[in-house]
């Protein structure tokens, strides 16, 4: 037991002594939460709009005022012809142009929107918003729209679970694998193996500080989400922590598996970056919705563990559903953990190659 404790302490010192890495490990969640919470959004805002009109009559001005008054659009100028407007758009000085026909005032028609279509999603939304803003406000809409779970449509709601999924995977899998491989590379692993300590203990002792670190990061994220970003933790905190623990275990086993394969730190780094980070960011549904992908990629994403974790967290944290609604995700995560851990421990070499 004493050996075990001193092992854990030693490992913790390695982590604590590397100030720069520590700073990044805790700085990363904080900065990412702030960025996603405050800086990055897909809201329609400040769309630079030019008015294209040959004469400034009352109706044109009314429409322009209405656009300018909304927070969605900023009028950046008025030009005479659509051609001029297009030049402005091409030069990235405007995003959208509103072309009023000659007889706009009299016939109440003949408005055309010219939208920079480079980003299809945004272009769609700009068009819809502009039409709504300019439309006659007296008319009552025939639908009543209700945004569930996220009435203000804040992107933070969507990203907090994703950040958790990514960072926990990064810290646990990447850091553990590198720290084990480093001992291999430096030759200290030989001594550890030949010592009377059981190999399993070496591994467990290595994993514990990272487990603690991962919890530290998890709690940082949750606290920030709740008190800085005002993301409600709608579900039960206990279950959030329980599912996260399962996920952390899964990530640790993955790290262990990588450390069995890799012989040098560089390989471990690249392996974790290539086979862990890339799929996590790309295929887990963190940024890009899985259901828009072709079938084959959807199948591949089915074996990416963070996909299930992020899904489960979105439901638990944001939608506030009970554990019974996410049994499928939890079962898959549990199964994956069991398989990976068994394989990793089986493959752990107590001898050199």
């Amino acid at each position, binding site marked *: 037991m*004493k*050996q075990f404790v*001193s*092992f854990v302490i*030693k490992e913790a*010192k*390695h982590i604590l*002594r*590397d100030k720069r890495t520590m700073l990044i490990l805790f700085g990363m969640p904080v900065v990412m939460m702030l960025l996603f919470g405050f800086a990055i959004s897909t809201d329609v805002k400040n769309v630079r709009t030019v008015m294209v009109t040959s004469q400034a009559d009352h109706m044109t001005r009314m429409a322009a005022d209405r656009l300018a008054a909304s927070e969605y659009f900023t009028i950046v100028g008025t030009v005479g012809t659509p051609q001029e407007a297009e030049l402005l758009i091409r030069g990235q000085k405007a995003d959208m142009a509103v072309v009023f026909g000659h007889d706009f005032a009299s016939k109440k028609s003949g408005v055309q929107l010219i939208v920079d279509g480079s980003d299809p999603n945004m272009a769609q939304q700009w068009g819809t918003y502009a039409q709504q803003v300019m439309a006659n406000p007296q008319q009552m809409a025939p639908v009543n729209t209700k945004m569930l779970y996220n009435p203000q449509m804040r992107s933070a709601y969507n990203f907090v679970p994703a950040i958790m999924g990514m960072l926990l995977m990064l810290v646990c899998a990447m850091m553990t694998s590198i720290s084990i491989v480093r001992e291999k590379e*430096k*030759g*200290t692993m*030989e*001594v*550890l*193996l*030949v*010592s*009377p*300590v059981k190999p399993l203990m070496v591994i467990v002792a290595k994993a514990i500080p990272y487990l603690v670190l991962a919890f530290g990061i998890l709690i940082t994220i949750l606290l920030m989400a709740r008190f800085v970003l005002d993301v409600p933790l709608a579900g039960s905190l206990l279950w959030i922590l329980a599912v996260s623990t399962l996920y952390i275990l899964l990530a640790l086993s993955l790290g262990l598996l990588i450390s069995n394969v890799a012989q040098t730190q560089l390989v471990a780094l690249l392996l974790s970056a290539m086979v862990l980070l890339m799929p996590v960011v790309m295929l887990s549904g963190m940024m890009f919705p899985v259901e828009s992908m072709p079938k084959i990629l959807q199948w591949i994403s089915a074996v990416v563990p963070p996909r299930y974790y992020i899904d489960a967290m979105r439901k638990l944290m944001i939608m506030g559903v009970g554990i019974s609604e996410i049994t499928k995700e939890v079962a898959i995560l549990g199964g994956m953990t069991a398989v990976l851990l068994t394989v990793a421990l089986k493959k752990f070499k*107590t*001898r*050199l190659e």
Partner: protein
Amino acid sequence: MNAIEVNNISKSYGKIKALEKVSLAVEKGEVFGLIGPDGAGKTTLFRILCTLLLPDSGTARVDGFDTVGQMKEIRRRVGYMPGRFSLYQDLTVEENLKFFATLFGTTVEAGYDSISAIYSQIERFKDRKAGSLSGGMKQKLALSCALVHEPSILLLDEPTTGVDPVSRKEFWDMLQTLKERGITIVASTPYLDEVRCCDRVAFLDHGQVRGIDTPQVILNRFADIFNPPGIDRESGTEASEEHVIEVEHLVKTFGNFNAVDDISFAVKKGEIFGFLGANGAGKTTAMHMLTGLNQPTSGTGRVVGYDIRTQYEQIKRHIGYMSQRFSLYEDLTVAENIRLFAGIYGMDDKSIAGKTDEVLERLQFIEHKNDLVASLPLGWKQKLAFTVSIFHEPGVVFLDEPTGGVDPATRRQFWELIYDAAQRGITVFVTTHYMDEAEYCDRISIMVDGKIRALGTPDDLKREFNQPDMDHVFTFLARKATRQSD
């Protein structure tokens, strides 16, 4: 019962046969030496004995337990220090020691007696991180870590490489104490004086045991390898009075610590100048200042006529340097390494190609021209590194422990190259821990605690301090050290 029994063990990596039908037996309480040139299979044998590797065929029993089937029993009983043993760089000296003590189920206090001779030298630096110790100091700490517990069998793979002579003697004294307590010790070493401290030695060559006997018998039987005849140096070139290196009151301070403390000396053109000193005496720091890698804190120095403070880029043009760590590119071939460094010094392709063949021919190495450096044995790497460092015919070449960890025959060949270079007028500035090599130098200086304590020809020094050989001169001076290390 024998402590270790090895029966017909073979092991190969791909096509390379590391061990071929090796059999040997080590008695309980014996100090058993394992000697042989680089690539003889010593490390492989160690790893098989401590159960890290499985043999292809044959069996080995350690303390009565089979290495294949009874791994756990053996691991509980042996202590092993691998050749490239490295400490945890980011832990302090004390933390490292404590960790290894706990690892082996003991405490520093309990094991203190068995390590005090060496550990006391570094104990005052116990709060310093292992990564900031000098090379030799790290080795001493590694030794302390390996010896802090008392296993029944101790396996040491070249434990004293890079350690100064005084500390090596202390280390072997410690091994004797352990032996008296009944611990069996198997150690490999390239140092002849250490070989003589063993009860019996096995000479391994190309994976085969060539002989097992007392050190005296083995050393005599293979005298051509272990005790090569001295090198005759044609003392044709009378060293001119022109000074290539001049140093006055050079000081380098790290924090409040004077690593180099006011040294002054001069090296004549064409001279072989031995720059000796205990681990951490400041040799490498001084050399870094002379080669323009570090700025001196105070004092002046000129190398090949240029000021080391301001004109270090010009100095670099006219010197060669071979660092302590092997530092050619392992993933390039022999010829490619030569071409790279020659090209850096401004030679053109044609003259490089011509000279490469000529030099490799002379080294009898031409057939390995297109081999990757990584695949060469250590001795050859070092010879190659030296060849590269003087390829552009520099005025001075700086060699920082160029022959660490190499067997006597290879070292002798290395020194033939050095003499050859000196013959051509290249001044050689060399540090070493081998005192027989010190005798090969024209003049030597011995650094203790950052200061030069002795300077002169080997014969002068022996006379001055009234000692029979350089080994004793060095021990005499180094024992007076107060600070022991940086």
